[in-house]
């Protein structure tokens, strides 16, 4: 692609339809800046989404959504004024600047802010449009085949629901320092929910797939694998018994179980929590918080991943930040506001749910780097414990560092062998303590399949999580059984 293809595509989808040009942005940025303003930006978004639902073997409930607008922010020190508008015309931009100034009590200038810094370029994903004209039929066909495929795997499958989401997001951001950047981000996600029944008992299994992919890249083997996994989970859970309760060794499979590091480490290393002295990791940078061999990174620059960003929502290129290096706490994730106030550099983690939300430091793809242990030997090393391959999400309390996550597919380990499946159990720990109990790190790093999302202060975003197989020597496992 040409160096500016991504930026040109963003301009074509945002500025051109609104009838505005960079001069309008320069004028509005000047009007946003008041005495003492250290940061001001305009964030434009244009989003086209389609969703389809599969139920009883039929694709029903199709929807199409147009979201577009602009958010205007101005900050003096840590005090932020913010307003947004669904109207992106020149007159609306002037009104928006007035609204922001009214909130922060300052009076704006007449100067223009020249946009002189060249937009960054990237090749992490192509500027394709997944929702282009005539594209819906191919997506519907993809979704429509899932019911029959799942039922063909096992007669105990009694119900199949699936859900497809296809999003084309274009963003353009310009700021007081004269930077302008644009990006177009295609996203597709498909989720499958299977109910199986045997002997009067029902159980569910879920799986999904997401990425910056077209129908051709999803059809066939990738989608078949998702269907098989959802059915297998439902069948396994048909036999599951209440999980045991107590402190025990836990082995976590590669991929999505890496949500452990998103919760236990990631959130506590977001810059805003450190600037406000709210994180349990505050003052611990440079300390050993995990065993040697434990390295955790946040990397927004992995090609094709759903958590990857050519530029973040403040125009900073996606990058790799080492959070824990060989057991030592090393890095924070920053947006522009918090980096500026902490005398640090933005790390490409400034993200927002939409133009109507303020950006914050947020994770991209966060994972534990591979070690040297053989996954089979990791399981074999446990006399009595839990082996978990799937989780329903997790939560963390930033202040205390206490995190939890709940299994959706897990088994007992007895004498080094995986035995009986167990129902959901909630695993708990404290971030700066739990990681010290990681004693084995597998050589089988995997990232999740593009289905993870993250909520922070009510804002939802797609992220990536991952890890190789690991053994944690001591973890509190809370089930419904003794």
């Amino acid at each position, binding site marked *: 692609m040409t160096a500016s293809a991504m930026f040109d595509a963003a301009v074509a989808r945002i500025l051109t339809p609104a009838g505005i040009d960079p001069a309008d942005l320069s004028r509005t940025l000047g009007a946003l800046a008041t005495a003492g303003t250290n940061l001001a930006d305009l964030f434009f978004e244009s989003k086209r989404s389609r969703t389809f639902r599969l139920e009883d073997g039929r694709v029903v409930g199709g*929807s199409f959504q147009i979201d577009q607008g602009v958010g205007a922010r101005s900050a003096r020190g840590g005090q932020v004024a913010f307003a947004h508008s669904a109207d992106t015309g020149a007159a609306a931009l002037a009104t928006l600047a007035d609204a922001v100034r009214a909130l922060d009590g300052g009076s704006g200038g007449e100067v223009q802010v020249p946009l002189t810094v060249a937009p960054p370029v990237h090749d992490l994903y192509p500027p394709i449009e997944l929702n282009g004209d005539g594209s819906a039929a191919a997506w519907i066909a993809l979704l429509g085949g899932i019911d029959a495929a799942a039922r063909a795997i096992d007669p105990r499958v009694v119900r199949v629901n699936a859900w497809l989401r296809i999003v084309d997001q274009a963003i353009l951001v310009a700021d007081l320092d004269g930077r302008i950047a644009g990006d177009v981000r295609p996203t597709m996600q498909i989720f499958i929910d299977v109910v199986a029944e045997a002997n009067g008992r029902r159980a569910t299994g879920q799986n999904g797939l997401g990425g910056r992919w077209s129908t051709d890249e999803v059809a066939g083997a990738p989608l078949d694998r998702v269907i098989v996994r959802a059915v297998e989970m439902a069948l396994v859970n048909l036999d599951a018994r209440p999980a045991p309760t107590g402190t025990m060794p836990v082995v976590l499979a590669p991929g999505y179980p890496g949500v452990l590091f998103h919760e236990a480490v990631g959130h506590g290393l977001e810059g805003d929590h450190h600037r406000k002295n709210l994180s349990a990791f505050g003052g611990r940078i440079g300390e050993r918080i995990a065993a040697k061999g434990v390295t955790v990174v946040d990397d927004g620059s992995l090609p094709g991943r759903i958590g990857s960003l050519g530029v973040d929502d403040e125009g900073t290129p996606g990058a790799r930040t080492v959070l824990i290096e060989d057991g030592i706490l090393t890095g924070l994730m920053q947006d522009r506001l918090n980096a500026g106030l902490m005398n640090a550099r933005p790390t490409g983690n400034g993200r927002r749910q939409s133009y109507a939300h303020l950006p914050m430091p947020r994770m991209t793809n966060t994972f534990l780097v591979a070690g040297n242990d053989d996954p089979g030997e990791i399981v074999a090393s446990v006399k009595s414990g839990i082996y978990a391959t799937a989780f329903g999400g997790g939560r963390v309390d930033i202040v205390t560092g206490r995190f939890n996550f709940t299994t959706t597919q897990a088994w007992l380990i007895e004498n080094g062998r995986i035995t009986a499946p167990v129902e959901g159990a909630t695993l708990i720990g404290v971030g700066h303590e739990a990681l010290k109990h990681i004693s084995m790190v597998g050589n089988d790093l995997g990232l999740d399949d593009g289905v993870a999302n993250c909520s922070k202060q009510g804002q939802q975003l797609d992220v990536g999580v991952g890890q190789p197989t690991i053994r944690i020597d001591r973890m509190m496992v*809370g089930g419904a059984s003794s």
Partner: protein
Amino acid sequence: MTRLLATDVATMEDVATRAVAVARELGADHAVVSARASAGMQVTARDGATDTALRDARQGLSLTVYRGARAGTASTMALDPVSVRRASEEAFAIAGLVADDPDALPPDLSQMATDTPLPPLDAPSGRDPGALRAMALDGDAMIRGASTAPGTSVETVVIDVSASEGVVAMATSAGFCRGQSYSSASIWAVALARDAEGAVNDSANSSDRRFDRLDPLAALTALAVERATGQLGGRAVPSHRGPVLFEARVATQLIGDLVGALSGTPQHRGSTFLPEALGKMVAADHLDLIEDPFEPYGLASGGFDREGIAGRRRAILNAGVAEGYFLNLRSARRLGMDQTGNADGPWNLRLTSRASGGTFEDLCRRMGRGLVVRRINGGATDAVTGNWTYAVAGTWVEDGVPVHAVTDVTVGGNMCDMLTGIVAVGGDVHRGGALRTGSILIDAMQIGGGA
């Protein structure tokens, strides 16, 4: 009176009606349109200064068009004629691609809430951003100025004061056209307490449609400080099976899980731990759960749902027996039942017990020795099996008296057993959104702790 919102019900009804006409021009057999607009402001403060000041303004239109029994939906935030036509065309195109779904057809006009009473929901705050800023700064000062035990300090994580107004209007090709305006306001206070061992935070909040009915700022900030300082020194308890008392504000979680199990889609899919529950005893026989859509200024009140159908005051649980589901029109048809007007979820719900539970302190005395759950930090309910495991924090009670804060514990059980195992509901009623309940005492659950 200062209004945040620049539009009104009549204008949005007109927007919706015009969109119906556009869809019919395209050839749609039926069309259902919902148009909405809202405006709000929010100020947060901490550390003696405002943190953020936000103006919020939203609008949107959602339209579902039908070609025979095929439906397509589209929505747009822009309400100009070109955008509305584009959305209509998209919806019409989708309806040409998907399968028949006759259960999803819109209701007849005779089924709709054309003349039912509309509960009052609109009480504009009359505040400007300056008034909210002053309140937020006051609240921050109250937290930072709270007196605490020696060796303990308190700070503000955030004080958040917000007010908003909105209007929603619905029009259909069957001739329905109604709208309603509403308001909402909230204060959210989060305090952080520190001692030599570390820090904990906790919150208190108040939400109401009437700004003047919000809990007093001083009471909320004092509660947030009390909750945060009360968790200092928390420690685990040993794993055991025993009684659990869910404080009212977290007991709403249990009602939320019950609502999910009795909702139409899980019921017709068989994805619920209470399948075919109507007429069956699903909870302890002293429990009633009453739904009321018409409570004046209720947080979950309304004259009709998004399908234009009214709810009614009714029993969901009557002496522990399930008497009602929460149905939208599609799930009602699939189950062969009457509509209930719950396309937007439950209306206001109130859990009560026929046996007096007394105060929170009475419930502690009744429990004798056990765990009070004051926070649910995360976990999951399996909608199909009812398996329920959560990470919690709270207080340990001995001889009916709180003795120390508890943290790093889990609570596990099965919802079916938990509902029948409710032995008392307190008179200390908390309202969280649509749900009202007192504290709930359950006879026996699995507690996990590493102590």
